[in-house]
């Protein structure tokens, strides 16, 4: 059993509830003990940094200081939290005066951040600590060559806080293949889905989402998997809006990679929050039905 400090991020309990549920569900079978960081708050987030970049660093630093006290690596399944927390840690390292000011503020809650914390993405932990070999050895329900498009989005690989390639990454491909699925190569696998601008600049973001769906489908994908809560929401919840805007007819299941892993490990689909996914296709439903566990939640678009 390996122990980690766990930072779910805000969306893992709401818009990306399927992420939160599935990560919790796969942790034990994969011998990970994810200990939720006591008292965590928002990571600091891109919008916060855009309005007040110094204050956003303090918000992040409080979480970093809490995590540092545990002595464990901090793991987050959210790509955006991963970038924000790492970015703040780097700012604090590069600017000693800022670090002093931040620590002066943290002191009101008896906290101090020293800079000895490793902030990791769940995908990094799955790939390098758990390893695809061990995952493969625990597969109960092989995915029989299901054609999966691994969608990295941006922040898992950029800026370069991990070790994967920033434009043609492989980590998700390796995880997907360890489950007996086929990782479909497609050129846009690490391109942007529009992020939070789906709210303020919707038509711009819908255009980017359409390109991604198109690239995956053209290359034979039966479903897309991603680790990122915002990418999943954009591709899944807004898929019908893409269809009405561009007169397309995508109906592609968009799963969290942790949900796909859970399915292969034989975990019940409700425990993985699969009924909180919106866009579904026959493929995943049939896969679930074949396993004899009918998913009675969620609707179809």
């Amino acid at each position, binding site marked *: 059993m390996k122990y980690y400090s766990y930072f779910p991020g805000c969306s893992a309990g709401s818009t990306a509830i399927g992420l939160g549920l599935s990560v919790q569900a796969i942790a034990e079978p994969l011998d990970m003990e994810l200990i939720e960081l006591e008292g965590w708050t*928002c990571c600091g987030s*891109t919008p916060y940094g855009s309005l007040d970049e*110094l204050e956003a660093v303090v918000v992040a630093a*409080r979480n970093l200081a809490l995590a540092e006290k545990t002595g464990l690596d901090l793991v987050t399944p959210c790509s955006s939290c991963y970038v924000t927390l790492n970015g703040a840690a780097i700012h604090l390292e590069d600017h000693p005066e800022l670090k002093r000011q931040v620590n002066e503020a943290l002191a009101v*809650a008896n906290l101090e951040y020293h800079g000895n914390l490793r902030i990791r993405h769940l995908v990094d932990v799955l790939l390098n600590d758990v390893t695809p070999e061990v995952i493969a050895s625990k597969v109960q329900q092989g995915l029989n060559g299901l054609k999966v498009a691994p969608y990295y989005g941006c922040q898992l690989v950029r800026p370069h806080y991990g070790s994967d390639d920033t434009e043609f990454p492989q980590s998700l491909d390796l995880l997907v293949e360890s489950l007996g699925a086929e990782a479909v190569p497609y050129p846009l696998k690490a391109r942007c889905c529009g992020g939070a601008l789906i709210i*303020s600049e919707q038509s711009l973001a819908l255009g980017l989402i359409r390109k991604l769906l198109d690239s995956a489908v053209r290359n034979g994908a039966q479903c897309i998997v991603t680790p990122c809560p915002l990418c999943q929401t954009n591709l899944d*919840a807004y898929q019908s809006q893409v269809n009405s805007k561009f007169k397309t007819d995508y109906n592609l299941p968009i799963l969290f990679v942790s949900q796909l892993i859970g399915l292969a490990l034989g975990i019940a689909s409700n425990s993985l929050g699969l009924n909180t996914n919106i866009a579904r296709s026959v493929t995943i439903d049939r896969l679930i039905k074949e396993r004899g566990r009918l998913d009675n939640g969620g609707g179809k678009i």
Partner: protein
Amino acid sequence: MVVFVGMKSFVNEVAATLGGEHIYACIQCGICTASCPVAGEMEYPPRKIIAMIRAGMRDEVLSSSSMWYCLSCHLCGCRCPRKVKPTELAHALESLAVQHGYKVKKTYTPAMYRSFVSSIRANGRVHEFGMMLKFYLMTNPLAALKMLPLGLKLFLHRRMPLIPERAKGKEDLSRIIQKFREVIASQ
């Protein structure tokens, strides 16, 4: 010479921000603009805005909507041969524009960020429903109606809790932020 002093001071002001540190290193090769998925939407794409900063065009830069289109995809920064980090520069410019009270036209992104951040300040975490409701009411209530089917879909899939969850660490966070503001103001 007055113009020269102005030029110097704006680029220095940017270089003193978190994210603007590397602005002097830019060689204007333009790979940032070529890589940007939304360069076409910007009044001044990344390469140009860096040139404008170095030319001292403070008002033009800080009142523009350009940086508010940044998606934080970091493709520009990863390809930049001089490690300028234009994504971080964009956020530094946004932050400077807010700090100095520049009003941005053409995009609702600043309003969206404001509702996002006020949600964090109130709850310690983001409450998406409250954040989106506030945003649509502030900017375009009609769009809120149009978004109703999507909101309902998310709600029915248990993805849109209506009541915010108050983070345990919220009180501590507020005290820390308050103290930090005092520390910054006193120096």
